[in-house]
């Protein structure tokens, strides 16, 4: 029983990281119809940026904020201006292909320019663990849970409760109506890209200590983010966190009770079940086929 609860707790912690990456992914889709296949690489880049800043002597918090800014500029503004804006009018698929190309470019560019080594990354939280009611919880898990969970919930509140947040949601749901209501659609879309850049940096900060920083670290996290987003419900921002946590917990349980070798396959199986049984996702709303 102790094992089980511990696995669930650390699974939730890992899952919230997936949730953070998935949330950015969902927001991009809602606000601009962008399916970002390079989302994993979007997490890998800030990790390298942080390493760079740490290397020149910055403390971790400063490195994180600097990486956040770099990420928002590069993965937010530049990504939108250079790739998304010119391609959006062609429809979904060319943009999907372009982001696939982007993921190849970023990954191979890092491999060619920096190398294929895996770099260790300092944890933002103290080492060690503490016990509550006989259950050992590591500070890293607790910190991850609080930070990632807090960010997702704060973002949800921002989207639901503030004028800007609601304006952003209005743009996502009905661009034309939002425009008629006098909402600056372009600015709102830009905000979403900026938020995605920041979320990528947060995910990088949290995941880098356990994944190590490597050119292909984005493959796993990217895939988990997609699956989490779809499992939770692609048209629901809340779904991202649920999907992420579900994957994190199930992975831990399967890894422990079934076989660690197939831990990576869990997300896929849940994903396949969801699209076969409930394609709109666990929290998503069904849409009737459009004629």
């Amino acid at each position, binding site marked *: 029983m102790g094992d089980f609860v511990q696995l669930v707790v650390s699974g939730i912690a890992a899952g919230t990281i997936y949730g953070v990456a998935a949330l950015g992914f969902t927001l991009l889709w809602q606000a601009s119809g962008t399916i970002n296949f390079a989302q994993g690489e979007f997490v890998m880049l800030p990790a390298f940026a942080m390493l760079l800043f740490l290397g020149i002597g910055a403390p971790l918090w400063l490195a994180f904020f600097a990486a956040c800014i770099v990420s928002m500029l590069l993965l937010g503004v530049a990504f939108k201006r250079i790739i998304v804006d010119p391609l959006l009018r062609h429809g979904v698929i060319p943009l999907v292909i372009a982001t696939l*190309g982007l993921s190849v*470019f970023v990954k191979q560019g890092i491999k060619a320019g920096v190398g294929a080594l895996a770099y260790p990354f300092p944890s933002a939280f103290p080492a060690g663990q503490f016990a509550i009611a006989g259950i050992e919880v590591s500070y890293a898990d607790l910190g991850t849970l609080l930070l990632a969970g807090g960010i997702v919930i704060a973002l949800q509140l921002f989207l639901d409760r503030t004028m800007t947040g609601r304006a952003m949601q209005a743009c996502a749901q009905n661009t034309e109506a939002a425009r008629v209501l006098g909402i600056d659609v372009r600015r709102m879309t830009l905000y979403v890209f900026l938020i995605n850049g920041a979320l990528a940096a947060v995910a990088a900060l949290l995941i880098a200590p356990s994944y190590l920083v490597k050119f292909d670290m984005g493959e796993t996290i990217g895939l988990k983010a997609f699956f989490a987003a779809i499992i939770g419900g692609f048209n629901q921002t809340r779904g991202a966190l649920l999907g992420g946590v579900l994957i994190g917990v199930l992975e831990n349980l399967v890894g422990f009770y079934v076989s660690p070798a197939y831990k990576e396959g869990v997300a896929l199986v849940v994903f396949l079940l969801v699209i*076969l049984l409930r394609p709109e996702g666990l929290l998503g709303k069904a849409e009737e086929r459009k004629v």
Partner: protein
Amino acid sequence: MNASSSTVIARPRRPAVPRSRTRLALAAIVVIAFALLPLGLKSYGTYLCSLFCVYLMATFGLNLTIGYAGQMSLGQAAFLGIGAYIAAIGMKAGLPFFAMLPLAALACFAIGLALGFPALRVQHHYLAFATLGFNVLVFLVLRNEEAITGGTFGIRGIPRPSLFGLSLERDLPYFWFTLASTLLLIALLGWLLRSPWGRAFAALRDNPIRAESLGVNITAYTLLAFAIGACCAGIAGAYFASLVGFIDPAPFNFTASLLMLLGVIVGGAGRFLGPVVGTVIIVLLPEWLRFMQNWYLAAFGVAVIALMVWLPGGLLSLPERLASRRIGALP
């Protein structure tokens, strides 16, 4: 589905398969030149030519799935792997290549059929994820089931077949054998795409709702599009196993699938010869441009983005694009 969601997919002006005699003659000259090319190459060059043929089989199949039937697949390398492992395991057990080849093809056909089911529920990007996940799963099985697949150590000493008592053990005969098989497969696909089935695939791609209202069994054609594409990769896999003699999971990871998909699209999805251009770019060019090392793939990534912005129909749509621009320039 709105029409603009699939601008990547080619809009061929001519019939799906070029028919005119001059084209046929030109193709024959190119094929003969290519067949004779390894005579002037060292062993590694011959190997590359064979490898090119193997990937052609897989990408021609992929082009049917994505270019003609309008589906999305990021799992072609998994089928290549399944075919390769089936052939390798069987041949190590003493079974002949020509028994394992149809088995690999059939197995991939069946698995492709099964993989098509998610495609009936979801489209496009969801499908990309589903096939991508499938590839990850296959990779895990290949790596973890050591008792069957040899795990990361792979399978060594896979023999090459002999044909009518002639050994294909040496590189040159094996290349000609692979080339002939590739041409046969391409011809079969060409015939299939010219048949009413090819038209039904295109109808499915262009407008599934209208197609269904006209009696096109979109369920059957969607599943078949996956199964036929997978089957081609399975066949390619069997040739691959015999070609390299040693297989491990590495060449069948999803990056390989991604490269094949991007190759087909860069060449021109839905154009019969698009995969030739794409396979040159993903298999042969990196060898010629070895000095670029990893920068080659990085540059390829940039090229894909640029192509999507300026020439979404792929490289083979360039002549048409230029022609239409010239017409557009006239008063």
